């Protein structure tokens, strides 16, 4: 087994816009332990002026009075970690989250599919960068060692037992997640590196520091098994994100939306599903949620396409009040037809993207703005065509001369016209209260414009223009 530990050290901060490396003001996340308030994460601007995690809030304020702080939100972080777990599930079926900020991935089974460790590495780093997340990766044959390497910045992968032992031995004991009592005891015994620690007799260690340390060391090098539960994804996809700052307009929703869509794309890839309809719930303070439903012609798992369509849709919405939480529910999931990698058939891929373009248009213009005009079997001109949904078959009919343009409503002719054709009488529809009794002519005006004009048989004083021979 080969474990990859994905460590997101800045996760509490990167949930917020402050976490962006270009954010100019110093900002930090604090955690209260009793009366003492300590920084657990600081952004780049804060880091530059010497405010680092571990500083007390009082000291930090002394350095930068303009420091922005926010309390650590454990529930929001757990939610975020779950979304990251869903995202990671596209890389392996055995993923296990380790609160508060680590995801363990069993990578050995995925190496072949993704083309080696280097390629997996590259993908993780690109994905994390796209989500503006700081990511440290540790790779080892045991989960504990992978976590240790990720946290201590040991980037070399320990893919076999020998490398693992060498790498472990080189570490100073301060890197190990031990409590102060153990550290003190070890230092007093003159032990500085993990190598020295591992040379001690296990029985003696257990006698002095209890079984915890011995077990940890055994699990670290794989002498003792360290079983992990694989994360079981939920049957339905519903994920939310609290907005750190109230979003006054929909533009500010892109950041959390991006995060939710990353989770969605992992979930869809894992299950070989595509989304056909999803709902975005925008929660407001003391008001009913705004619900936005987005449909797709074909089930899709393309993250960029969903993001583009959703963003396009969101920009058209005016918010009744600022948004405090965004929830994404995938209502309608359907198995996706993976594009067969056919060397010769090109049209399939093209048909697929035609639907993407139409989804994109429909998202902004509304589903009703797109249609396909199909002829219909009725003699009444206004009923001889139908606005159809896409993917309908054309039936074969043949008509006498008909204009290319039809007026939505027949218009009273306001200028003299010259009749240039014989009459075509159309009488129909007495049975459904849309009785049509008209004599149609083709007529021209003095500028040469050709029209399809009629007089009704009930009243032959007025001419109506019903179509234009464009």
């Amino acid at each position, binding site marked *: 087994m080969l474990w990859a530990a994905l460590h997101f050290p800045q996760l509490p901060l990167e949930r917020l816009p402050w976490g962006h490396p270009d954010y100019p003001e110093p900002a930090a996340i604090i955690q209260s332990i009793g009366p003492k308030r300590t920084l657990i994460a600081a952004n780049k601007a804060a880091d530059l002026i010497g405010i680092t995690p571990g500083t007390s809030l009082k000291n930090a304020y002394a350095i930068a009075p303009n420091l922005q702080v926010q309390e650590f939100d454990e529930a929001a972080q757990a939610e975020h970690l779950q979304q990251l777990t869903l995202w990671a599930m596209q890389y392996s079926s055995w993923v296990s989250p380790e609160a508060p900020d680590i995801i363990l991935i069993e990578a050995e089974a995925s190496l072949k599919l993704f083309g080696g460790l280097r390629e997996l590495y590259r993908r993780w780093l690109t994905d994390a960068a796209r989500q503006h997340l700081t990511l440290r990766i540790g790779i080892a044959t045991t989960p504990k060692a992978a976590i240790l390497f990720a946290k201590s910045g040991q980037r070399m992968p320990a893919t076999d037992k020998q490398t693992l032992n060498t790498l472990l031995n080189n570490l100073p004991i301060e890197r190990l997640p031990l409590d102060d009592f153990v550290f003190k005891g070890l230092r007093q015994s003159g032990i500085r590196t993990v190598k020295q620690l591992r040379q001690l007799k296990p029985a003696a260690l257990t006698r002095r520091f209890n079984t915890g340390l011995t077990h940890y060391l055994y699990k670290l090098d794989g002498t003792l098994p360290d079983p992990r539960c694989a994360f079981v994804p939920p049957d339905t996809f519903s994920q939310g994100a609290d907005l750190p700052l109230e979003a006054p307009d929909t533009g500010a929703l892109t950041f959390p939306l991006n995060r939710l869509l990353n989770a969605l794309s992992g979930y869809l890839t894992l299950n070989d599903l595509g989304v056909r309809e999803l709902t975005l719930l925008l929660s407001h303070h003391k008001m009913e949620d705004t619900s936005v439903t987005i449909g797709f012609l074909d089930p899709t798992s393309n993250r960029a396409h969903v993001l583009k369509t959703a963003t396009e849709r969101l920009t058209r919405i005016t918010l009744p009040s600022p948004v405090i939480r965004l929830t994404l529910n995938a209502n309608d999931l359907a198995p996706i037809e993976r594009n067969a990698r056919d060397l010769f058939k090109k049209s399939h891929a093209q048909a697929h993207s035609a639907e993407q373009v139409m989804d994109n248009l429909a998202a902004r213009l509304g589903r009703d703005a797109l249609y396909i005009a*199909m002829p219909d079997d009725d003699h009444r001109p206004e009923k001889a065509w139908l606005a159809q949904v896409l993917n309908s078959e054309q039936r074969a009919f043949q008509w006498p001369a008909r*204009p290319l*343009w039809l007026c939505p409503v027949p218009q009273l002719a306001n200028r003299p016209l010259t009749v240039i054709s014989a009459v075509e009488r159309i009488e129909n529809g007495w049975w459904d209260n849309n009785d049509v009794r008209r004599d149609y002519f083709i007529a021209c005006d003095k500028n040469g414009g050709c029209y399809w004009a009629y007089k009704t048989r009930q009243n032959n004083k007025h001419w109506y223009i019903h179509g234009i021979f464009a």
Partner: protein
Amino acid sequence: MKTVALESLLNSQAGVWRGSDRYNDADAVPTGFPALDAALPSRGWANGCLTELLVGHEGIGEFSLLLPAIKQLTNKAQWVALIKPPFIPYAPALANAGVRLEQTLVVNPSDDKAALWASEQCLRSGVFSAVITWVQRSTPQKQRRLQIAAETGNSLAIVYRPGFTQGEHSPAALRITLEQNPTQRKLQLNIIKVRNGKPQSVELGLHAFDQPQGVAWPGMTPTRTTADALSLHDLALAAVMPAQP
């Protein structure tokens, strides 16, 4: 004589690169009208180029002009988009003309801005072989965006604009004004700007549209004006009179 000498001199030099060669090999969709094809350097509607058709008056065959191209593309299972047509594209007439309607998408945006946006999206995607847009107001910048989108997707970009915009600057590769000579009943196409070609005029007799339409184009000879009050007797007479060729 001098120009001929210059031509032959230039052609004999292998090292001379001439701008006029640039677009000749651009693939194009034949317009279906030999006279028009002959007047265009690309021998048809050029892919990846913006074409502007400036129409002075409706109902002169302005859209019929594109029917052969639309028919040809849709029957090759390629998509054609009609964006913001001024009226309802009438399915029976399109079906008569042999257009495959299931490959023809009609988009009805609410305003010109949305229409230009939709047009750009369709062009850029490369999915649509032809994108035909009707706009009232546009700017050279917006037209430039369409031109670039057309190049990106290598599709046919055709924009219908009102005739009065003739004087406006435009980055389109081809601009044609359409007007009808009412007495001769001919559609006159004035090519006012064409990349790598000569501005000229082409006349199409309206009978040229018979075949693209699939039915005979409305008769040519005026019979009577609607200003004359038609009696029932007249109507009956009109009904028995055959349509003029």
